[in-house]
């Protein structure tokens, strides 16, 4: 029919204009809020907000008030700043061997630790060049002791390339919020790294440290 297709097209865009459910834009990193949105986002009741901070209230009425907004991410999101547990790492360098880009550099020396369970190396150097990393996660898959986990962050921009090389000091001091990617033991606990809760080294892996009796039994059977 003449012109009906045109009217149909107009109706589609009219629905976009009218229905709020059609709006899918996430405002990041700051979201503009109105007065009600501001009281909801800050958790302060509306009358209290008006008395306490009248300037911001007026600003929010003018559409100028902002609140922080983070992008919703899946717990299995593979992000920056690897979570690495020094206590779990034996220095086997599997991660360095499996890395398709060869960006993990490990230098070890004999430490004399844990001679009963097997030699553990002392790590002199553990550098990951994140600037060249493609976040495939093969190093995490290769780690036999679940010492290395993918991180969960994505706001790690720097001004220089060399700042993207993560050394051992940075890895130790980094936030321990591992991604649950390739870590079903974390996923089964319903762990969400984006809620900001840190995981300790003994809660992160499959391999629990055997008790003294188990160790003695194991050695006695030898």
């Amino acid at each position, binding site marked *: 029919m*003449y012109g009906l297709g*045109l009217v149909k*097209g*107009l109706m*589609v*865009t*009219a629905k*976009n*204009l009218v229905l709020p459910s*059609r*709006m*899918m*834009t996430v*405002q990041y990193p700051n979201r*503009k809020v109105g007065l009600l949105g501001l009281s909801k986002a800050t958790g302060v009741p509306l009358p209290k907000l008006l008395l306490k901070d009248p300037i911001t209230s007026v600003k929010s009425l*003018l*559409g*100028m008030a902002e609140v922080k907004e983070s992008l919703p991410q899946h717990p299995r999101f593979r992000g920056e700043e690897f979570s690495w547990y020094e206590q779990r790492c034996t220095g086997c360098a599997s991660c360095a061997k499996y890395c398709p880009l060869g960006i993990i550099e490990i230098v070890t020396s004999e430490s004399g630790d844990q001679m009963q369970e097997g030699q553990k190396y002392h790590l002199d150097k553990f550098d990951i060049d994140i600037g060249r990393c493609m976040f495939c996660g093969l190093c995490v898959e290769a780690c036999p002791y679940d010492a290395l986990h993918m991180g969960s962050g994505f706001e790690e921009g720097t001004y220089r390339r060399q700042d993207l090389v993560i050394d051992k000091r940075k890895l130790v001091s980094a936030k321990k919020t591992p991604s649950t990617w390739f870590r079903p033991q974390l996923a089964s606990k319903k762990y969400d790294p984006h809620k900001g809760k840190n995981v300790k080294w003994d809660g992160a892996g499959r391999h629990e440290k055997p008790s003294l009796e188990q160790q003695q039994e194991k050695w006695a059977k030898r």
Partner: protein
Amino acid sequence: MTEILILRSGFDFNGIYGFFDEFMPDSLDWLVFLITSLILAIVIINAVVLSTALLTWFERRLLGRFQSRLGPNRWGPFGLLQPIADLVSLLTKEDTIPEGADKPIFTLAPIVFLAPALIVFSVIPLHGGSFLGNLNVGLIFVIAITSINTLAVFMAGWSSLNKYAMFGAMRAVAMLISYEIPMGITVVAVALVAQTLGLSDVVLAQDIPYILVMPLAFLVFITAASAEMSRTPFDLIESDSELGAGYHTEYSGAKFALLQLTEFMAPIIVAALVTTLFLSGWRGYGPIPGPVWFVIKTFIVLFGFVWIRASWPRLRVDQIMGLAWKGLLPLSIINLFVVAIEVFIFNPGENGLSTTDLWIMTGVNWGVTIIAIFAIFNLLGQSKSERPVPVISPLANMYANTNTVKKITDLAEAE
């Protein structure tokens, strides 16, 4: 009528001239004229440019909501300062002229493009009269002045020594000239019913808005006008997916700002014209004053333009020319004939057509509109034109099924 008189006594050319003429000696009449012209120029330019800046914000916000995203909302309350940011960004850029360009024409084109748009606004009646008082040939003036834009577009495209600019300019000339004809014929119909050529007299004659009296003329006029200002269904002058940017490909900096300003000014002017010719201008009901009615009606038309821009895709070149010559031209001629016969039968005297006459015309014209649109599009529509059976070249795919190729070549030979 009293309301009109109150508003009329104020701000137009004669009013300001009279105000200054009182305390100036007669020998300084030229100075009074100059001062009056300058004041009017400043007022018109500022009013139009500011409303254009507001329109860019309005259009981008609304377009965003139509496409389920947010428009500009960062800079100022609700993003209202975004036009200023854009302007600063454009004015601080380097103003380049391509090597080998025709420099005088290249520089002149934006000014030639801008001036008519500003001049048109001086005759549009915002209240009882327009800024220039009551120009008695307003309709002809508007039609004549707006066609200068075509020249400016061609100047810009030709002088920049760029093939895409040239393509855009050639398309512009072909399209703008084609669409001027149906637009002019509908305006003749309006003048015939209103029995006048002055814009404010047209408004005074509209006891019933002419959108009801002549729906066919309204449809043709709004289609032709949106083609004239080259907005989305007809924006192949600057089709960004094919030509880069069309005629202003080589422009940058302040010149580009002028071109863009004019382009965003066009919807305001067309909306104001549509309001004047078809929506009974400043006339309204209740205590709301006339200029507010005018702005509200203009705003509704602008909303329609943005809605159309958000929804409809661009037409092809041949479709656009076909629509102008096969669709709009016959429709406008039918409209003119019907209206002329009606006016001849009613034979208005000094006072113009009465309200009863207009209501009878409304009834007849709605029927004519529906029948004419169906008839024209049945006769000349795209669905009626037969397409040739596509013949695949046997060389196109050498390893294809040879039987199919044979069948196709047989078919081609049989025809």
